[in-house]
């Protein structure tokens, strides 16, 4: 990882030469808690720098998938690898944005965003600058000194986004990160995410309930727990590129996704 260039202007934290994304792969995996598997025979690959969006009904195992990729939950079977090495424990390479509120309530938003940098040993002044810059990017500049319970739910989600991205991880695992946002803020965050990822080239697995969001953000879309209820994954190659050019293709794609989900 490059450390010499991290002192570049705080306003553009992603402009530096970031390490490229990782390749994440699940090969014939069974996921879930011991004794309670939720997904079987799952094969999935996310190429470096790709955005894989994941949709599926509630309880089908989307969060379980992300926790497994993060290294918090061992797979019940099969192989889960990062660049060919098995994932056995959490690592700063793979940031996870939790579905639930995971900000530390005794730290201000800024201190929360500084935490990944503090863990890495970034000097205080520098990490403060970078945290402030990130909070500004997600529109929380004037709230940076507040405690999490003094801001709104959507503001907490944006702070979590900043906390996940500030350390420039090589993979970002996001569990419905924009669920509590209004359509307008959500669109802004989506644009910000795409822009940031163009800079960092991080690999992304993005769980969402919103099919349109999945189509807008994803290079590919994985459908978990479809009508068959199993762990089937349907890859749709490059929906974003197609969607960008062709409204009719988007509609067709959308119907295809919804049908696969049994709707």
């Amino acid at each position, binding site marked *: 990882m490059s450390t010499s260039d991290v002192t570049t202007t705080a306003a553009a934290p992603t402009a530096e030469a970031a390490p490229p994304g990782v390749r994440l792969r699940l090969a014939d995996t069974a996921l879930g808690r011991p004794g309670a598997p939720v997904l079987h025979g799952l094969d999935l690959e996310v190429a470096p720098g790709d955005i894989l969006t994941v949709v599926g009904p509630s309880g089908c195992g989307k969060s379980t998938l992300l926790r497994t990729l*993060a*290294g*918090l939950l061992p797979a019940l079977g099969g192989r889960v690898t990062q660049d060919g090495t098995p994932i056995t*424990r*959490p*690592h*700063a390479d*793979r*940031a*996870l944005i*939790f579905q*639930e*509120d*995971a900000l*530390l*309530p*005794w*730290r201000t938003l800024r201190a929360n965003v500084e*935490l*990944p940098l503090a*863990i*890495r040993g970034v000097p205080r002044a520098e990490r403060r600058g970078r945290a402030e810059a990130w909070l500004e990017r997600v529109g929380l500049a004037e709230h940076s000194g507040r*405690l999490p*319970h003094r801001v709104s739910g959507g503001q907490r989600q944006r702070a979590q986004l900043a906390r996940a991205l500030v*350390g420039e991880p090589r993979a970002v695992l996001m569990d419905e990160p924009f669920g509590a946002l209004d359509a307008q803020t959500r669109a802004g965050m989506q644009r910000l995410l795409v822009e940031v990822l163009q800079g960092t080239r991080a690999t992304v697995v993005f769980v969402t309930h919103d099919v349109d969001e999945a189509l807008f953000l994803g290079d590919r879309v994985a459908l978990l727990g479809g009508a068959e209820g199993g762990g089937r994954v349907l890859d749709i190659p490059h929906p974003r590129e197609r969607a960008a050019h062709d409204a009719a293709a988007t509609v067709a794609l959308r119907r295809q996704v919804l049908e696969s989900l049994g709707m």
Partner: protein
Amino acid sequence: MSAPTSSLRSRPAPEAPGARAAAPRPLRRRPWVRYTLRAGSLLAALGLWQSLTALDVNLWLRFAQFPSATDVVREFADRLGTGAYWQDLTDSLSRILTGFALAAVLGVAVGTAIARSPLVSDLLGPVLEVCRPIPAIALVPVAILMFPSNEQGIVFITFTAAFFPVMVSTRHAVRALAPVWEEAVLTMGGGRGRVLVSVVLPGALPGILGGLSVGIGVSWICVISAEMISGAYGVGYRTWQDYTIVDYPGVFVGMTTIGVLGWLTSTAVELAGRRLTRWLPRTETTGRPAPARKEAATP
């Protein structure tokens, strides 16, 4: 105030100005009223005491032999001028502060270790659970046998008294932590030490402070009792001495001293606790007045 735009809105509107106009007043008056009430209740207790003893009330409860409030105040004033009083006071204070500090550090350390490590829990749990029900004051014989000096024995007893409440509440608080905080730090690349410092200790702090509050109270009970039994000097020792020589006002001076010191130390613990846990979301009605939010919150 803007004109109501719908019938739904117009309802709370007439109430709101009234509530708003009324809100600042109780806010300004309330602390004043509360302090008056507190002082009043103390004075009333003293007045009751004084009249019961002055009138030599003898209705099953007998107050004839009782020193009156004024006797005690006079005695108190006399003692405040003596070096012995202050010597006793500092003796007791240094014993309790030493014992309590040790209990705080070890209680938090052991409680955390038990909550976090099944191995430690298996190794230490049974021993501690058997020792816990033994009243600290029943350890006087043990203390006399084990420690070369009374002084250390008393500190040991004070320590034991405070250790268990601190250890138990730490254990519970650590076990009750939301796992997601720890997982968040792990996914940032934090190790065990980082989790301990950044998640476990701050997250358990509100619970730990509850244990510390209880602990300082129990410490006083035990330091005074231990001084009465085996001490040389100290407020408890002096109080017992005064009793054996039938100096009842002196006994009451000792009791008052213990009461005031106990109150001061637990207030110190409470205040320190409140400072350290300012991040806790508090309900606006019981916390310190927060005018801006309070106004909005009053229905």
